[in-house]
């Protein structure tokens, strides 16, 4: 009367995508099971953790982040330090200064920064644009050209700029891109279809399907990811089989629980502890729902989540 295991292995699989070059290149996706279900079948490429830093420099408001980057005075040094963070498989460089509603830094300045970062690290590189669709169309194309041959991943192509980015980054310079949509399976699919119509092959893009911090509508994120994975694996929908990459540092470190000063809520304890727990909790919830990679900010979160993935898969 023993228990008969019935592994849930699908005939479809998540598309496998490589970023970076050389011995430190990483691969996302490739599994034919639900997320983290390594007991059903070998998880071909265990989920990855990336570390994020801004072109404005490390977030020195957070003591642990400031201490980690202490002494790194140039962008190159910061990038190198980030790439040495325990558990980080790739580095994510965010061009916050390029935001037209903020500093609106010129494209050539941003591109020079990207070059400095790319020269300083050997790990794969993800570049996040300004978040402004119009600016990113121009910016990410220029970055793709400057970093030609590095096989970087550019975030993000959205509905309003995917054409330019698909052609300018993928077709012209062979880079990878992330297709970003807002927590909805249909929007995600629609964008993937349109990107495919530009001639981008399925092994050249990942999905960024939106995110929220734990407690802030995460149910939408969980269900969107679970439905996307379900459609890709059990219904063999090849427009929903791209790996999912989820940058969540900005969400996790902007909610009240992570930033409210301890003076205002003495019983809550230090803000940094709250932020790390929020970041780790959100990251594990994303990985459980379907993310193939998460991007975090605090070195302690990076280390923790990478260690947990190592233990689970």
């Amino acid at each position: 009367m023993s228990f008969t295991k019935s592994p849930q292995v699908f005939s479809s699989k998540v598309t496998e995508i490589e970023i970076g070059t050389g011995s430190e290149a990483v691969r996302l996706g490739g599994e034919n099971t639900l997320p983290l279900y390594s007991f059903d079948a070998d998880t071909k490429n265990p989920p990855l953790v990336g570390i994020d830093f801004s072109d404005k420099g490390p977030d020195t408001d957070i003591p642990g982040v400031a201490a980690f980057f202490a002494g790194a005075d140039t962008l190159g040094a910061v990038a190198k330090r980030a790439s040495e963070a325990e558990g980080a498989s790739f580095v994510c460089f965010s061009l916050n200064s390029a935001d037209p509603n903020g500093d609106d830094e010129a494209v050539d300045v941003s591109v020079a920064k990207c070059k400095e970062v790319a020269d300083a690290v050997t790990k794969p590189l993800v570049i996040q644009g300004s978040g402004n669709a119009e600016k990113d169309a121009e910016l990410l194309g220029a970055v793709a050209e400057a970093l030609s041959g590095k096989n970087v991943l550019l975030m993000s192509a959205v509905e309003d700029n995917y054409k330019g980015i698909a052609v300018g980054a993928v077709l012209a310079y062979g880079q990878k891109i992330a297709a970003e949509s807002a927590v909805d399976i249909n929007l995600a699919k629609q964008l993937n279809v349109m990107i495919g119509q530009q001639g981008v092959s399925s092994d050249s893009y990942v999905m960024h399907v939106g995110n929220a911090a734990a407690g802030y509508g995460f149910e939408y994120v969980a269900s969107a990811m679970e439905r996307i994975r379900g459609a890709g694996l059990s219904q063999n929908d090849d427009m929903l089989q791209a790996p999912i990459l989820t940058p969540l540092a900005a969400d996790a470190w902007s909610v009240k629980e992570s930033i409210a000063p301890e003076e205002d809520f003495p019983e809550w304890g230090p803000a940094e502890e709250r932020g790390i727990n929020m970041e780790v909790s959100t990251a594990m919830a994303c990985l459980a729902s379907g993310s193939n990679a998460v991007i975090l900010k605090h070195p302690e979160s990076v280390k923790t989540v990478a260690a947990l993935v190592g233990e689970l898969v």
Partner: protein
Amino acid sequence: MALKGLDIFKLTPRTNCKECGNPTCMAFSMKVAQGTAQIEDCPHMSADALDMIAGATAPPMKSLAFGTGDAELKLGGETVLFRHEKTFVSRNPFGVNVNAANVDAVLAEAAKIDYERIGERMRVDVVNVEYTGDKDGFLGAVKKAVDFGRAIILEVSDAAVAKEALEIAGAAKPILNGANASNYKEMSEVATAAGVALGVGGASLDEIYTTVKALEEAGVKDMAIDVGSASAKDAFANTVQIRRAAIKDGDRSFGYPTIVNVGKIGGGCSYKETGLASLFTLKYGSVVLMSSISYAQALPLYGLRQNIYTDPQKPMTVEAGNYPLNVATAASPCALTVDFALTYFIIAGEIERSGVPVNLLIPDAGGYSVLTAWAAGKLSAGSIAKFIKEQDIEGKISSRDLMIPGKVAVLKGELEDSLPGWNIIVAPNEAVSLVKFLKERYA
């Protein structure tokens, strides 16, 4: 396994007596199959037939209650594997591990957590008292756990010690967690005598399964399964496979709630415990136990649980009313948005970030986002004016500045008509612009 109408029909007397209120036995059977009529409505069903139907229509996973009074918790009873299919039923309680040595310190820390979030009281739900070989110390810890007043799990596999512990804690209806392949007979006798549920564990899924089967044959009904603590990988594999066997494959012998002790698989690292507790909140832990719970851990975990266990058909809402932010007074300006919890949190967060004192007014808008509520007629000049009258905002607040969401700027004119004396201000379209807007206007 759902019964078809025809299967039920075969069990009815087939006399078309109409006593159930339906024209024929067939019509009645179809309704029962759809769940719109109860089998008990037929006065002529045999006891055997009733048992069979009850068995066939029972949920694939049993539910289990433990604890008493306001500490009572319900576990299990889940019917689906994914929340987009149907609402998850029993939110997973979070508990702390205590033993003879650390009981005072852990409970003192746990007692601090008590707050409300969107109408739900958040606190440490369970105390798991572990027997570590010191009987007197264990019994002392059990006594303290009882006094703490939350639901209790007794983690002890020595039947004699378990019996003594239940003399102290039996009235609190704990789960006696400690049955395994070698002691299940004695343990089930102790649990049955005290009328409490039994937690069953084992070295492998096979061993657990065999033990559960043996207990079922002995007539034990109330059980929970301890998924084990050999490693995070094992615990996760067991938890998922137990739930999947019950719900997807209809294997009733794994249709019991699970106990997951991340305190034992987190390697003594609180961040790892937070991560694992999050994982098991999404993936099928019915009770999640940790070595201790700090506020920093509770805030994300309880929020995440609230999200995951919300009804996918029904958005979370905050109660209508005035929420003074940044120590707002009667003279502080008012801002208005909808009662959809997500919108409320985002707007309240941005206002708090601005540091500008604001009275945030939340009318009943059906739990929709701003534009949807407006399109559905739940957020109109009329409904806003009515809310301001009903809540006596004009009596409580002296400021006459009212900011409305930029997306419903169209309401400005009508509002000026229906709220004479108020200065209606159109705020930005997006929450991200709010800090700048408020600072420029009021700081």
